[in-house]
């Protein structure tokens, strides 16, 4: 059995700006046991099979080191992202009821006007500035405003949400040498504070619905009934954090990619109808979620000729699968019109991103409006400074100079 240090190197912040050579190495090596006992998978077809394999558990209570459970809130039960069926299915259905089909099919589509208005307000606010930070001035405030509005978080509370979220995301930093106890504690406290805040907010809507998701979750009930209070708290935290963190990176990675490919940028200006397919290609080429670090085989499972033993941490490197030459022709090329693009940008299988439709609409509108209103944008530094996390990967800042334009 070979051991490797690839996971160590991938999580090393020094490789954050360009992890793709490491992913190529991973695909060539095949499935390999890492020095910490985990198994890394980076080839498309193997990842696809594992994402659809009921023997591979997402239940965070199976983790060897549950202290690292993503988005786990104190003593509360896991949210549905950290559960297996049938419990995952029950909770996801309940939360889907006010969000999407079959019960609320038009809800996300109806946000089109609001999202466009928010994007234009943000763009108006930096008119006249020669230099903008695309993250702080646009890519962050847009999805935060959208998800807070959708859930029912009042605008004046958004700064609290930002502070809590930053602490939670900092807890996902696996960089060797950082103090895991300290970041876990800070992240745990932030998740708990957020959960109690959302519980209180939802409670205030009981009997006083105001048209948002929290109101629906405490006032309406489908065939599955309602979430218990602990379930409501833990899932509301999930929706709030996952509902914007990743979209920030999708928008920022999008502009960065366009600025690095001026031909693509020019083409998208001429053919805005290409943007939906360009967003899909971004999800393949620079996915906001690079890897899924928290799956566990419930039995010995053979993957790519290697037996991954029951209970071993299994890390699915989605971003490596997205560039597998056995699945995608010319995978390192950014092609906004790529056909047959079944990427892992939103995962696959039963845990396929809950918020994918919202993220798609936000990214499409955000990038379309930016291209429409930013004349001759120029990248100030390449690569830009990155955020710490190797899981939720994206620039911390993206400075863009505007030459001319209004």
């Amino acid at each position, binding site marked *: 059995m070979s051991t490797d240090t690839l996971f160590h190197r991938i999580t090393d912040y020094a490789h954050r700006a360009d992890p793709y050579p490491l992913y190529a190495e991973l695909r060539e090596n095949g499935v390999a046991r890492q020095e910490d006992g985990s198994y890394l998978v980076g080839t498309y077809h193997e990842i696809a099979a594992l994402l659809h394999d009921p023997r591979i558990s997402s239940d965070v209570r199976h983790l060897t080191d549950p202290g690292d459970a993503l988005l786990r809130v104190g003593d509360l039960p896991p949210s549905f992202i950290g559960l297996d069926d049938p419990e995952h299915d029950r909770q996801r*259905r309940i939360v889907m009821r006010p969000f*999407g*089909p*079959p019960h609320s*099919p*038009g809800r*996300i*589509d109806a946000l089109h006007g609001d999202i466009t208005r928010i994007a234009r307000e943000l763009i108006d606010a930096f008119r006249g500035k020669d230099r903008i930070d695309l993250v702080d001035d646009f890519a962050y405030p847009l999805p935060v405003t959208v998800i807070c509005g959708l859930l029912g978080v009042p605008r004046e509370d958004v700064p609290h949400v930002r502070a809590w979220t930053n602490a939670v995301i900092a807890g996902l930093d696996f960089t060797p040498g950082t103090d895991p106890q300290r970041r876990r504690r800070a992240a745990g406290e932030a998740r708990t504070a957020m959960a109690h805040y959302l519980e209180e907010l939802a409670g205030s809507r009981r009997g006083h619905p105001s048209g948002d998701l929290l109101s629906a979750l405490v006032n309406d009930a489908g065939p599955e009934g309602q979430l218990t209070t602990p379930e409501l708290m833990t899932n509301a935290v999930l929706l709030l954090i996952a509902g914007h963190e990743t979209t920030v990176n999708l928008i920022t990675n999008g502009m960065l990619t366009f600025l690095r490919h001026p031909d693509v940028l020019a083409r998208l200006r001429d053919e805005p*109808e290409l943007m*939906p*397919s360009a*967003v*899909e290609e971004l999800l393949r080429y620079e996915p906001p979620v690079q890897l899924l670090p928290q799956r566990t085989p419930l039995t010995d499972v053979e993957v790519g000729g290697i037996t991954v033993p029951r209970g071993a941490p299994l890390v699915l490197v989605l971003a490596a699968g997205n560039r597998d030459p056995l699945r995608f022709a010319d995978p390192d090329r950014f092609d906004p*019109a790529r*056909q*047959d*693009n*079944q990427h892992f940008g*939103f995962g*696959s299988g039963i845990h*396929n991103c809950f918020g*994918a*439709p919202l993220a*798609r*609409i936000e990214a*499409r509108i955000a990038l379309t409006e930016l291209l429409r209103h930013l004349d001759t944008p120029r990248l100030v530094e390449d690569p830009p400074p990155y955020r710490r996390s190797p899981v939720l990967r994206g620039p911390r800042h993206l400075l863009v100079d505007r030459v001319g334009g209004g």
Partner: protein
Amino acid sequence: MQIVVDLNRCQGYAQCVFLAPRVFELHGEEALMYAPAVPGEQHEHVRRAAAACPVQAILVGEPAGDGAAPSGAGGPADAGPSSGAGGGRAGVDGR
């Protein structure tokens, strides 16, 4: 515009229902219903839905000779219209 959904491929992710709720509909939890002839004001929604389908099961066909026909000849080799889904039109494109 005509559409065909390859129901052998469809896995009920429902992304099309989110993006084009007037064209695609879930019947119960998983069965997909859709209107094969798409009215003009829904074309853009349908193109978005086709791009977003996680299993690329939506085939969008423009009338032959229409200048707005999607570029790129044909989709994945195994994405032909399924029997019973009403497809097989000339100009159908796996986009």
